[in-house]
């Protein structure tokens, strides 16, 4: 990768300094390039792929929540005529535990998971063996024949009770994280009021509609181990899995195909992915593994379970002097790929959109006998936004201010951006790049017709209905850097191929990249084909997570497309058109002279053909109408938004019905507003799940009770309210040329906060809601306990 982007487009360039301001597709609601195969049943989800002579792998999972393994009996399984192999921990003793991403946080190594349990199991669902057969039905029959004899140990099921022993001499308190700035002690001692909340978020997770799966084989023509079905961070995870199974990264490639939803949980490095690749290598046969839904709910990453105790020190006007926050993070049984990313992020983002002069936070990261937890869409921020907004609502009550006024007094003013905080998140210094939160609040109040809404609510309350409105303000983060690359090539038919290192997990990355490339290059977006999630065609790639694909990969795609454009124009100027390069442009796929409108141009396919290897093109530079582009950024982007919920509570059943939901979001620059709105509405649905319906529940023995879709309740069309979205572009990011900030998480971040506030408002009990999800059973009990309904 030699071509670097034009130096004028480096980090720090303002959006209005764009050298190529053309916006034919960027900003348009164009339909998706992804859709035609998906609506006609031509998806390439891993379950749809097969190789001849493949083996099917089935995982045998622990039924103990915490136990010493005395023995695992595989004899009956091995005696089954269809059995092609059984492995236990002893068979994979040479494979080290699964690594996590590089981090400056120390001390997590002992808490990593082996691909198969060795002498101990720590959650129900932990892989203890794998069996192999020619047919998935038979594999399941054989797996049922493997039995484990264990010595049960006491279970630890909560993070806020006393830590126990993870292993001899090792505490279940894996880590205590701290972040501080300013003088919190003097803020607390000089405060007019100190307001405290103690709130919890329940365990829930992404739960994509497609279960996890992997298909691996060795292609002996290239001596490459191919693995299909991974989507999130193909390059990094390829490197990690290759290292674990003892291959060189260059001899292993990932191909993601279609992925049935990501949400942070899909595509992490799970034991099963490593086992599938290892099995393909050891058996020298293709090996396929597709989990079932019960396994998915038991073994795919959980998330979110945290308790926060937050104290806010306020002056006499209700302005924050400081926040002192503790959190207890339920990490589950092992530390997975993300390390301590979730609590770190929660602690770093808890103070959100507010000007907080001093901040002290402690996070207790503790291991429990439950499924390992990790990132889920808006990791740490769904939780921290909920905690911080509960504090602001409590402060409003104690100061006798409206819930809006208390926030107005504390929002970071527009002029203060870029706004630095003297702490780090994920080893990055915090600098909020741009924002106008007060402006977004005013636009929100207009858009939701606040006064009218308040009047309607008052009138309905007068008739005895328990209706209420709540808001959640949030500061998101996206565009995590530092660098991403892309390669753009025009073929001789004028079709454009963009090779990116992003993952397509359903979010529309192909369309968005095509829109960006089409405008930068000067072609129709439907002529752009976007390749993603393949390690064999691009050396590096960041994948798709943390709302970064549009910003980072989009930035790189734009650079590469601009480089191709420049190359096409320079070559045309020298060899094809008698005109200086400044007089040329590419419009609708044709190289044209600016000074001669209407004159036929040269199709870029012809330029590409002319650039075929020849002495002239070698002399020109390098053959082919192709170029790479790199995008680098030092800072994250910080989009922000406001969620508003209108709810009605049924005092007899305890049910909360969400009647309307509104999301106001400043995205900096929306490449495709239709797709952004799609991301947001989908995020709201997931947020409502976590706020009202979804929870992984365990009994007192550590037995998971939410292992089918009849027990883990995700919202259906019937539970979804109408969602209105107000997208603004008032604070474009200065960190990239288009001002983009990222779209993946905005729909979910503030839902818990807004729903909790709306329910408080509906039942007329300030700060009543301290625990999510708010189930009818819990709300009814609360209403009775507070005397709001007859006991």
């Amino acid at each position, binding site marked *: 990768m030699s071509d670097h982007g034009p130096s004028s487009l480096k980090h720090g360039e303002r959006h209005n300094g764009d050298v190529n301001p053309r916006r034919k597709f960027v900003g348009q609601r164009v339909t998706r390039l992804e859709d035609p195969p998906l609506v006609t049943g031509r998806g390439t989800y891993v379950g749809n792929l097969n190789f001849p002579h493949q083996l099917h792998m089935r995982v045998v999972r622990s039924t103990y929540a915490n136990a010493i393994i005395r023995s695992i009996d595989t004899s009956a399984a091995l005696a089954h005529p269809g059995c092609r192999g059984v492995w236990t921990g002893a068979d994979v003793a040479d494979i080290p535990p699964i690594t996590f991403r590089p981090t400056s946080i120390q001390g997590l190594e002992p808490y990593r998971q082996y691909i198969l349990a060795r002498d101990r199991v720590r959650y129900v669902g932990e892989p203890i063996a794998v069996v192999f057969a020619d047919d*998935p*039905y038979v594999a*399941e*029959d054989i797996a*049922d024949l493997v039995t484990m004899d264990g010595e049960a140990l006491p279970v630890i099921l909560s993070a806020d009770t006393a830590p126990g022993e993870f292993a001899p001499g090792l505490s279940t308190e894996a880590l205590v994280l701290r972040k501080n700035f300013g003088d919190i002690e003097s803020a607390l001692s000089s405060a007019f009021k100190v307001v405290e909340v103690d709130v919890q978020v329940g365990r829930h997770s992404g739960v994509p509609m497609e279960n996890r799966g992997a298909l691996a084989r060795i292609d002996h023509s290239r001596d490459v181990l191919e693995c299909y079905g991974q989507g999130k961070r193909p390059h990094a995870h390829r490197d990690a899995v290759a290292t674990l199974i003892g291959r060189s990264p260059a001899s292993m490639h990932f191909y993601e195909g279609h992925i049935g939803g990501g949400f942070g949980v899909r595509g992490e490095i799970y034991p099963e992915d490593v086992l599938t690749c290892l099995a393909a290598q050891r058996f020298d046969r293709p090996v396929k593994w597709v989990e*079932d*839904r*019960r396994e998915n709910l038991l073994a795919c990453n959980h998330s979110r379970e945290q308790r926060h105790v937050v104290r806010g020190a306020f002056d006499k006007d209700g302005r924050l002097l400081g926040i002192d926050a503790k959190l207890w993070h339920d990490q589950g049984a092992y530390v997975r790929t993300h390390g301590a990313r979730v609590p770190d992020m929660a602690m770093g983002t808890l103070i959100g959109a507010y000007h907080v002069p001093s901040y002290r936070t402690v996070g207790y990261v503790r291991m429990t006998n439950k499924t390992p937890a990790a990132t889920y869409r808006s990791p740490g921020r769904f939780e921290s936004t909920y905690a911080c907004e509960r504090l602001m609502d409590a402060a409003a009550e104690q100061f006798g201010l409206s819930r809006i006024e208390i926030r107005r007094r504390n929002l970071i003013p527009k002029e203060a951006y870029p706004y630095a905080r003297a702490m780090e998140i994920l080893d990055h210094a915090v600098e909020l790049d741009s924002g106008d939160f007060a402006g977004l609040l005013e636009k929100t109040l207009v858009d939701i017709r606040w006064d009218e809404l308040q009047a309607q609510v008052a009138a309905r309350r007068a008739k005895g209905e328990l209706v209420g409105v709540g808001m959640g303000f949030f500061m998101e983060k996206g565009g995590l850097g530092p660098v991403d690359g892309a390669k753009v090539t025009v073929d001789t038919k004028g079709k454009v191929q963009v090779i990116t290192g992003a993952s397509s997990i359903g979010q529309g990355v192909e369309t968005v990249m095509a829109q960006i490339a089409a405008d930068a290059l000067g072609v129709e977006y439907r002529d752009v084909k976007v390749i993603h999630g393949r390690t064999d065609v691009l050396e590096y790639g960041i994948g798709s997570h943390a709302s970064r694909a549009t910003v980072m990969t989009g930035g790189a795609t734009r650079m590469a497309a601009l480089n191709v454009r420049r190359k096409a124009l320079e070559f045309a100027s020298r060899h094809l058109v008698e005109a200086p390069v400044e007089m040329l442009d590419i419009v609708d796929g044709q190289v044209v002279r600016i000074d001669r409108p209407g004159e036929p141009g040269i199709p870029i396919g012809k330029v590409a053909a002319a650039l075929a290897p020849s002495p002239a093109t070698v002399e020109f530079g390098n053959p082919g109408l192709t170029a790479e582009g790199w995008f680098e950024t030092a800072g994250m982007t910080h989009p922000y938004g406001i969620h508003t919920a209108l709810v009605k509570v049924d005092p*007899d*059943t*305890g*049910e909360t019905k969400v009647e309307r939901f509104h999301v106001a979001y400043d995205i900096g620059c929306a490449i495709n507003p239709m797709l952004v709105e799609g991301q947001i509405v989908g995020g709201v649905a997931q947020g409502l799940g976590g706020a009202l*319906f979804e929870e992984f*529940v365990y*009994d007192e023995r550590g037995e998971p*009770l939410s292992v*089918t879709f*009849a027990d883990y*309740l995700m*919202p*259906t069309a*019937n*539970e979804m309210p109408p969602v209105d979205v107000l997208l603004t572009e008032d604070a474009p990011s200065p960190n990239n040329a288009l001002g983009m900030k990222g779209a993946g998480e905005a729909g979910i971040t503030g839902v818990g906060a807004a729903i909790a506030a709306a329910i408080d408002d509906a039942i007329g009990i300030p700060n009543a809601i301290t625990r999510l999800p708010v*189930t*009818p*059973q819990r709300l*009814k*009990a609360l209403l009775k306990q507070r005397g709001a309904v007859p006991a």
Partner: protein
Amino acid sequence: MKAGSFEWHPARSADEAVALLAEYAPQDGRVIAGGQSLVPSMALRLAFPSHLIDINGVEEFSRVRVEGGDLVIGACVRHAAFHAPVEPGPLGRLLTQVVHNIAHYPIRQRGTFCGSLANADPASEWCLVAATLGARMVARSVRGERVIEASEWFQGIMTTALEEDELLAEVRLPLLPAGSRAGFYEFSRRAGDYALAMALVAWRDDGGTMREVRIGTGSVEVQPRRITVAEALLEGRVASPDAIAAAAAAVSADVDPLEDIHTTADYRRDLVGTAVRRAYAQAGD
């Protein structure tokens, strides 16, 4: 999540079905009709039948008819058959109202009324209907046919009076007399979920006075049942809000609710009272 192995025996007639059942029931054989409860439990490997006697091809089981004051529902009549009233009277209307609460549209295309009765899930809407309205279950085997009253049919959670070699050939639901009113209400977490409590009420309106009052509850106890102490409070009374509230309170006091990790007995006790009141409100509409 794949079922264990079994032998499949499609029956073409009722006689063939009971003959197959007589042969295979002792070898872990089971009847499959709609399969909308059985197949998931096989997929989850909670059920391992070695033989399935498939009665979907038995023509006579697909019929629903009115006979001798009863609505007679054959073994393979799908839930979806009740999407429109199957008879013009109040029973037909009630069943149409109830059916929309049963699982989801595609499940209702396949699942059967009699299958629900045979499965006897405490949260089954049809079981509540049968218990409250006094259905009679017709059990057939190679030994002959017998009729089982609703009061005898339910024997606890997912347990019925059906013998191993017997097939539930049809259910006879007494038609509601002219002038009857009936209402149903259930509360569930989401549309289509198993209810946390449900109630069915029915009575004959005798010039404003309630006669032949029936109040049944489901999803509350181990099996659906009539709450006779509450019925007695309304028998011969005018349907006033106070009277209904008193009956609802009597239901709450009388039930012995199931509990689980989410749901306390106290919650269910409250909820069933609400369900009774709302079922009356439904009937009044």
